[in-house]
């Protein structure tokens, strides 16, 4: 049995960067800012590679949608163990709906048994692409996964829900979105980074794929959240309780 796993990955502002809102309120400053693979996508790649290592999958294909520089993100995925990569090039900022539309085209072409992706991107914080893709494909979904087991043509998924953990069983093919607790992604070793340079990376143009990419949401403005007023340092617990009672009036 062969099963291909498709892993969408996104190039985002590195999670350690404290972003600044652009002076004209049009967005966030991204010029000269460190970019990295979305942390949840690293977890998705790691899971796909582990499935291949366990023999549950035979090939891992990474796909990214974005500017030419997104190929760096794909090279990282290849260095972590993906077998090949596809870049769908666009200079537009796409919404999850358009991204899911493009991914559907790739899924139809590649016919993976599983799409494994991050639960959300840390830039737009949408948490939507996996669910939309599953809907468009008519596939079942396993979101916020903290464990994935493949057996007998089904995937058993442990999901993080508000009050604990839920386990569901999905018929393959399916879409799974990774939560933080799914695994600890590996670091790409130097030899693997070198090897990744030789792995195949195909480039397509988003505009050629016949998908409506027009945004449905217009950004009216982007603003800084209100600053909190400066706090005070206290010397003792007794003083704190006093302040909470008389000044803040919260206890």
């Amino acid at each position, binding site marked *: 049995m062969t099963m291909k796993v498709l892993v969408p990955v996104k190039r985002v502002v590195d999670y350690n960067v404290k972003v600044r809102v652009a002076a004209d309120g049009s967005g966030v400053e991204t010029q000269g800012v460190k970019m990295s693979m979305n942390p949840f996508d690293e977890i998705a790649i790691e899971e796909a590679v582990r499935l291949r290592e366990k023999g549950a999958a035979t090939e891992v294909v990474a796909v990214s949608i974005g500017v030419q520089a997104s190929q760096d993100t794909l090279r990282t995925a290849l260095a972590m163990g993906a077998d090949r990569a596809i870049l769908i090039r666009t200079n537009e900022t796409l919404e999850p709906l358009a991204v899911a539309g493009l991914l559907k085209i790739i899924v139809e072409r590649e016919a993976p048994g599983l799409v494994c992706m991050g639960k959300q991107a840390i830039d737009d914080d949408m948490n939507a692409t996996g669910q*939309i893709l599953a809907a468009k494909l008519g596939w079942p979904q396993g979101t916020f996964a903290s464990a994935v087991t493949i057996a007998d043509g089904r995937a058993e998924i442990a999901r993080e829900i508000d009050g604990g953990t*839920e386990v569901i069983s999905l018929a393959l093919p399916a879409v799974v979105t990774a939560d933080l607790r799914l695994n600890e992604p590996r670091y790409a070793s130097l030899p693997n980074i070198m090897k990744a340079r030789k792995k195949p990376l195909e480039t397509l143009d988003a505009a050629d794929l016949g998908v409506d990419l027009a945004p449905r949401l217009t950004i009216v403005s982007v603003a800084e959240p209100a600053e909190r007023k400066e706090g005070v340092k206290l010397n003792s617990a007794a003083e704190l309780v006093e302040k909470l009672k008389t000044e803040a009036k919260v206890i």
Partner: protein
Amino acid sequence: MTALVLLEIEHGEVRQASRSAVAAASRFGDVDVIVLGEGAEAAARLPGVRNVLSAASLTHDLAEPAAALLAAHASEYSHVVAAASAGGKNILPRLAGLLDVQPIPEVVEIKDENTFVRPIYAGNALATVRSSDTIKVLTIRGSSFDPVSKEGGSATIQTLNAPATEDSSRFVRVELSKSDRPELESARVVVSGGKGMKDAEHFKLLEPLADKLGAAIGASRAAVDSGFAPNEMQVGQTGKIVAPELYIALGLSGAIQHLAGMKDSRVIVAINMDPEAPIFRVADYGIVGDLFTILPELEKAL
């Protein structure tokens, strides 16, 4: 215009976050609600609800049948709304995919029927967006809208024939953490611990303090990853978003991702060894010192 709100029921009651979603949706006009499984009666008592659509045969909140059911009724509504809970985030984007619309997650403010404010970049920026879709699918952040009360309404209950569940997705089991404490997202006071709590045993030292304050207990990602606390206690960009009256952070440095989940709390208290910890930048009151010394003193002073 009429909005349809997907409600979540817990222990026979409508969850607070869902009641916040009803409050938000009432800004658009009449409100109908939909309940999967038991709980239609509790939903009918919510003030301001016109009709309750009851799909009692859907006993689990699997996304596939739930989104299909919502999609079958969505064309009668201008807005479909749910709380930005694990359930809402699972089902509503799938509904949006079925309707071919772009969902609008984690709304914190409604400007008008088409225009919404939502945080991006872990809450470091607020984007105001205008939707051109005919049906708006949105999840709302519970802490940003005052919930409607539990009683006062008398809506009519309409029974829906839920679509036959397909075998493509099966419920296997659920493991819920048992707790007598208030729900984290709706608690008035939250006591939260970080890596500085040292280990799971020491993390338990937060319990007497939480008991005294009637507080829920939260944790940073570091504390959860180190096994001090279960996942569902995690507060932050990828965990729960809380905005209580009082948030007490102990031994918690205050990484960007954590601040995203609690910086809208009314009063923030930080207790930390490191005077340079970023948590002090958002704290109204801070004590620099050893939390294991301060914690018992704090309990005594209360």
